[in-house]
């Protein structure tokens, strides 16, 4: 079997249509990024996220109303996996101060009802993430620490010293969410699949590291290309890279929350996908340019446009087939890889399509136009 054999398509002659297509895709993406914005995941934004799976299917809308009354402000809730899974996220790091009295009351009600004798005979202290209770004697402190722990609070003795009379109760945000779910969703128990808390500092560092990584990748590729080809080609190739990355990123903004089950948030894995894309999409460009260089040696008199067409047509079969096999495996990942890898697979899938397109139509076209504009004889 042999497809795309002996192609004789005048790609370069039609390049203005490709420019038009690329520019409109690019503008569409940028427009959406500007107005709808990119959604960043917890890795970058910081915050608290928990993923729970209920025993029976659950309506996300119901869950939203249930959790709205918890006083946590804006909570994001999405389906995760099938209709029994839910992803709950807030950008908060710690429980809002106004919630403390409510929780304190819950804790103290619990203490008072289980040990009526000591009701009111203890002191409490607040700190950003916890409440500390001081009791009259060490034994009571131990007993209450255990009781509260069994009731679902994160309690513990302040120290293991024999004389310790203090009990500390952690009231983190995820604890409060779990506690609320337990109280509000009756008769449908749940299991915590995943729980993440990322501090604001980590998110900021990650943003910086990502920028560095992307810039370094581009520099690395530029240096490599500079060794292999003359400037024009490196210029065309890198421009095509920007084209690929920005259009795919634009797609993120366009399709965010459009396709159910596809959670298009920019997180660490997605960044990994984009970096891989940079490395992958340069491949096709390099291979076309390689062919151009080879053809130039044979047909010295032909124009650059003709040479480009010749090289592209000759490598088209390979371009389509390797792009196709990679697409196949990424497509399998998109279907079977599960929620965690879906955004990654999506990025690669569209990135590869756009990358293959750009290395054939954009990178080469830029080189031709550049050579025309400056009326230069292109050398390799």
């Amino acid at each position: 079997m042999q497809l795309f054999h002996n192609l004789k398509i005048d790609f370069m002659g039609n390049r203005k249509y490709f420019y038009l297509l690329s520019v409109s895709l690019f503008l569409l993406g940028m427009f959406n990024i500007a107005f709808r914005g990119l959604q960043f995941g917890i890795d970058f934004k910081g915050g608290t996220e928990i993923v729970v799976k209920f025993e029976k299917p659950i309506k996300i809308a119901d869950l939203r109303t249930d959790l709205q009354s918890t006083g946590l402000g804006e909570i994001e809730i999405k389906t995760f996996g099938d209709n029994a899974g839910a992803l709950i996220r807030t950008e908060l790091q710690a429980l809002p101060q106004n919630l403390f009295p409510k929780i304190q009351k819950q804790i103290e009600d619990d203490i008072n009802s289980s040990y009526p004798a000591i009701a009111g005979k203890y002191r409490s202290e607040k700190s950003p993430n916890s409440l500390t209770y001081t009791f009259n004697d060490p034994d009571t402190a131990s007993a209450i620490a255990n009781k509260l722990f069994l009731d679902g609070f994160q309690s513990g003795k302040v120290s293991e010293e024999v004389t310790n009379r203090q009990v500390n109760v952690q009231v983190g945000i995820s604890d409060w969410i779990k506690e609320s779910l337990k109280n509000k969703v009756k008769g449908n128990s749940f299991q915590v699949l995943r729980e993440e808390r990322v501090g604001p500092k980590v998110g900021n560092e990650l943003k910086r590291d990502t920028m560095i990584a992307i810039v370094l990748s581009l520099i690395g590729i530029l240096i490599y290309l500079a060794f292999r080809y003359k400037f024009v080609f490196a210029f065309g190739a890198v421009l095509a890279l920007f084209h690929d990355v920005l259009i795919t990123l634009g797609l993120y903004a366009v399709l965010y929350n459009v396709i159910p089950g596809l959670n298009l948030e920019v997180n660490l894995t997605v960044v990994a996908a984009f970096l891989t894309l940079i490395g992958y999409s340069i491949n096709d460009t390099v291979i076309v340019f390689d062919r151009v260089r080879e053809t130039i040696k044979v047909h010295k008199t032909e124009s650059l446009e003709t040479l480009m067409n010749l090289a592209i047509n000759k490598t088209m079969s390979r371009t389509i087939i390797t792009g196709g096999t990679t697409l196949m495996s990424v497509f399998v990942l998109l279907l079977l890889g599960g929620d965690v890898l879906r955004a990654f697979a999506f990025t690669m899938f569209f990135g590869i399509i756009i990358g293959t397109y750009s290395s054939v139509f954009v990178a080469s076209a830029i080189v031709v136009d550049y050579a025309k504009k400056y009326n230069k004889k292109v050398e390799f």
Partner: protein
Amino acid sequence: MKALRFRFIIIVAAIAISVYLLYPTYQDYQNTKQISQAVKNKRELLKKVNPGLSVDQLDKLLQNTSDSIKAADPSIREARMKRIKLGLDLQGGMRVVLEVNTVKLLEKLANNPDDAFKNILASAGKEASLSNESVVDLIGRKFQEKGIRLSRYFGTIRQDDSEILKDLKKQSEEAVTRAKEIIRNRVDQYGVSEPSIQLQGERRIIVELPGVAKEEEARQLLQGTALLEFKLLKEPEFTVNVMEQVDRVLAGKSLEDTSEVDSTKNVPGAKKDSSLAKNDTTKNQKLSPEQFAKEHPFFSVALINPQSQSADAYVKADQKERLLRMLAKPEVQNILNSSNAEFVLGAKPVTYQEGQGVFVLYLVNKTAELTGSVVTNANSNIDPSTSAPVVNMEMNSEGATEWARITGANINKRCAIVLDNVVYTAPVIRGKIPGGRSQIEGSTDLAEAKLLEIVLKAGALPAPVDIMEERTVGPSLGQDSISQGFNSTLFGYLLVGIFMIVYYKRAGTASALALSLVIMFILSILAYFKATLTLPGIAGIVLTIGMAVDSNVLIIERIREELATGKTMKASIDSGFSKALAAIVDSNITTMITAVILYQFGTGPVQGFALTLMIGILTSLFGALVITRVLLDFLLNKGYKITLG
């Protein structure tokens, strides 16, 4: 022909090595299946026999079952150690990034912090949480801006700012090592299998606890303050006596049965007692190991040396769990409580036997003589006169008074230094120590002395840590991810492989075959380097499957073109391979560049992706340039017709 045979041998050797490297993973998979089946059966059984069991109790019992199966067969452990390690996102567990809170540390270090100091510290802390500058540097700058000398709060009046800053830097660095050591100590005790504790940057600690689902417990484990205590060891005679009582109740005999030992216990001159005990144990050595274990459950786990002056018992690493369970039994606790005693284990193995560590078991007073809060400083050094490593310890005035009394009253007894319930060392008290300055000898090298210094300081200077990042993956999500990853790899391979075979016929079949070997090589390289396979790592493998055929496609397309110019098949294959080489190398190098950068910058799962991608690139080069080539040459030599589609 000769060259072909040589390459053939290389490929066969590579396959053999991979199979060898991957076998433990397969074995571990089988073992896990068997154990989970056994645990399942046991669960049914326990539920039937005792329906009133709570979930927690049931889990605990089942944990014991699986532990004992694992302990019974060393090959299970070995397979587990050599298998491909799975990341936390696949096997479930907890990953915590901790950062030492320098602000709190400095507050503790300051001599007389007033409000002005606290304000500066607070603003420096806020700035440090957003920038990358260290708190110590920020503070130095802020003090300078305000024209306050650092010696007002730190160090002595004679020191200048730069000296103090250097000192503070050293202190904050030490706090990180101390926090790491405390965490390692606790994690070891907690009994997590294959934990990983790493330093990242200057003051971050990354802790990975596979399989931990109870985050509350784990969090407390990581964040609580360390408790350092000084506890006197019980006298050897007394210890042996207690051990025998414990042994007896564990064997199911009542204490009254053994009037023989009980009567000697009250007789003055307990020496006799211990010699009797020694006789007892030597006599028992004639029993078969099974019988001995039944008759003397305690002594079969905690071995004592009859010749030794001390009554330290020795416990092998894999018996620790069992021993702790024995000691937790109420009847044993009764014996210990009645004599204000408790058993504590050594923190590190004292020696190794049959590849596993041996720990010392001490019997100490339950109430501590002193806690570590009295320690003001500790320093490890080489004693100039003996050139042996020593640790010097200083105490505050209240501590020193107490310490003088304790040491004076217990000369020639041993005092254990206990951090979070494990013993770091148990030196003999040589004489009364007035003034609170003690010298601890007996460390085997400077590293050990340094560790003791860290331990002693843990009481004096807590290293407060903040949780920066915390990620927990439940086991069921991990299990789902494994099967999703496996299915993606399998179907990805099938789809691409079938396409190659259909499109490129025999040449495609050779590529598909090479591709399956490439996947095997990737996995075996991961196993060899004990690298971690994560879910994104699996994505890397799937991606490699798609990209690996790129080289094959380049080559086959080239061969087609060469054939079209009228060359023979053999010549076409030759020039096809050599002409495609440049393009193949080019296209792999760019991907490699980004993979390396990703590996440098990524963390956890993403690093796993970069790793499989890198390995994938290298192995697929081998697959295309060597394996496919050999297969094609082989077909050619045997006179088969090579079809390209």
